[in-house]
């Protein structure tokens, strides 16, 4: 479904992605974890060319792009394969919740208003926001805005959905409702890549966990493999630091990171 090979990206002379190769199978949910500045978000944003990679190959849903010589049309084709949920929601502020979901359908799939809004209402219902359809983003809470963002990403029915730290800018009280909605989608066999700082959530929802550090994929495996039996020292250190931050203590005895 998604195949990335030898992806490289640097800003000026500062390499952010050093040589990234990985694949995601159809219906698979992959969580990318790692310290801040490790390149997780940049990797995600390279997949839809919000950042232009310097080198490497990206293949998503049958569209294959050599990033060194990608034409405008190829980039557009690649973007049609995925949709994205953003850390800061990025809702269209001049449109109601319903139109946020329906408008892209009218523009990109040329659906008429009635059909687009029918799909919009169905998806708002799925994320539990039927009663907010006519509200503008400014009168929605962070959690509600992010759920509209998820509905918008679902609406274009892409091959895969990319989540870029979907709960990182939410007040703690709204995190749960957003994670529940994402879990609900994961159960429906959607292919997803989720960059997240929520380790519990990653463990629960992901089929596979990728740990990134310093522009490289350091380790990957099932959640049990990565969280309970990390092989790499950098993974161990990251998880230990994370646990210390969450609980204030580490479980030194068996070095397991069963986060509660």
């Amino acid at each position, binding site marked *: 479904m998604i195949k990335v090979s030898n992806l490289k990206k640097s800003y000026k002379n500062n390499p952010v992605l050093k040589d990234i190769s990985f694949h995601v199978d159809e219906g698979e949910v992959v969580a990318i974890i790692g310290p801040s500045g490790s390149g997780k978000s940049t990797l995600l944003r390279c997949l*839809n060319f*919000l950042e232009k990679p310097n080198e490497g190959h990206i293949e998503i849903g049958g569209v294959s792009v050599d990033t060194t010589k990608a034409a405008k049309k190829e980039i*557009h084709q690649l*973007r*049609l394969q*995925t*949709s*994205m949920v*953003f850390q*800061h929601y*990025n*809702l*269209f*502020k*001049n*449109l*109601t919740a319903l139109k946020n979901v329906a*408008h*892209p359908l009218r*523009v*990109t799939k040329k659906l008429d208003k009635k059909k687009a809004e029918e799909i919009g209402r169905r998806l708002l219902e799925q994320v539990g926001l039927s009663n907010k359809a006519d*509200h*503008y983003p*400014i*009168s929605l809470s962070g959690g509600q805005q992010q759920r509209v*963002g998820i509905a*918008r*990403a679902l*609406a*274009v029915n892409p091959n895969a959905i*990319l989540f870029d730290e979907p709960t990182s800018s939410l007040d703690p009280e709204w995190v749960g409702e957003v994670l529940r909605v994402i879990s609900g989608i994961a159960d429906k066999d959607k292919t997803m890549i989720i960059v997240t700082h929520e380790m519990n959530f990653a463990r629960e929802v992901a089929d596979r966990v990728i740990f990134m550090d310093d522009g490289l994929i350091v380790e990957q495996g099932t959640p049990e493999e990565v969280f309970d039996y990390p092989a790499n020292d950098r993974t161990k250190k990251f998880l230990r630091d994370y646990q210390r931050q969450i609980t204030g203590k580490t479980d030194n005895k068996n070095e397991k990171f069963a986060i509660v």
Partner: protein
Amino acid sequence: MNFDFKYMFEIIPELLTYVAVTLYIAIASMIIAVIIAIFLSLILVNRIPVLHQLALIYISFFRGTPPLVQLLMIYFGLPQLLPSFNSITAMTAAILAFSLNVSAYLAEIFRAGLESVDKGQAEAALTTGMTYPQALRSIILPQAARNAIPATGNTFLGLLKNTSLAFTIGVTELLAQGKLLATATLHFFEAYMAVALIYWGLTALYSWLQSWYEKKISKAYVREV
């Protein structure tokens, strides 16, 4: 005090017929200026090479020189450089000069308006499969326009008053007619006061219309209680 109120009010109806000329110059210039400024601001925001530098020089020149000088250059100077402008009427020259002058101010206002729409919304539009022009039309421009409306309105008020400069090249608009009446009757203060009152009325009316419109379109951005 020698001030003839009766005369002042008597000439107002006659002067009002020239408001049409003033409004025609102002509105025509504004429309052309808006079109030029949209292109200039898109060049500025997207930093298109070469055009970007040219746009900056254009803006700097038209903002950095007096509108009266620009008007004289266009009406008297252009025909000398380009013979095809020989038959340019004073009215056309005035509209052209004001369009160029105002477009320079509007370009900066529109640029700021475009930049006030956070980049994330354009990115989100791209990730749903929209192209940049599509995102521009339905998401970015409507919000940029809303942010730019107060400053654009101020510029229009300035233009409305500056149209009086057109009388220096012989366009018979509101001020020119006032001057005509003033010198014919020697009621200088009354005539110019009447002219001033009409400009004041026009700008007050426009300000009222604008604040009504601003309220109307900011519905999406005000939290519902």
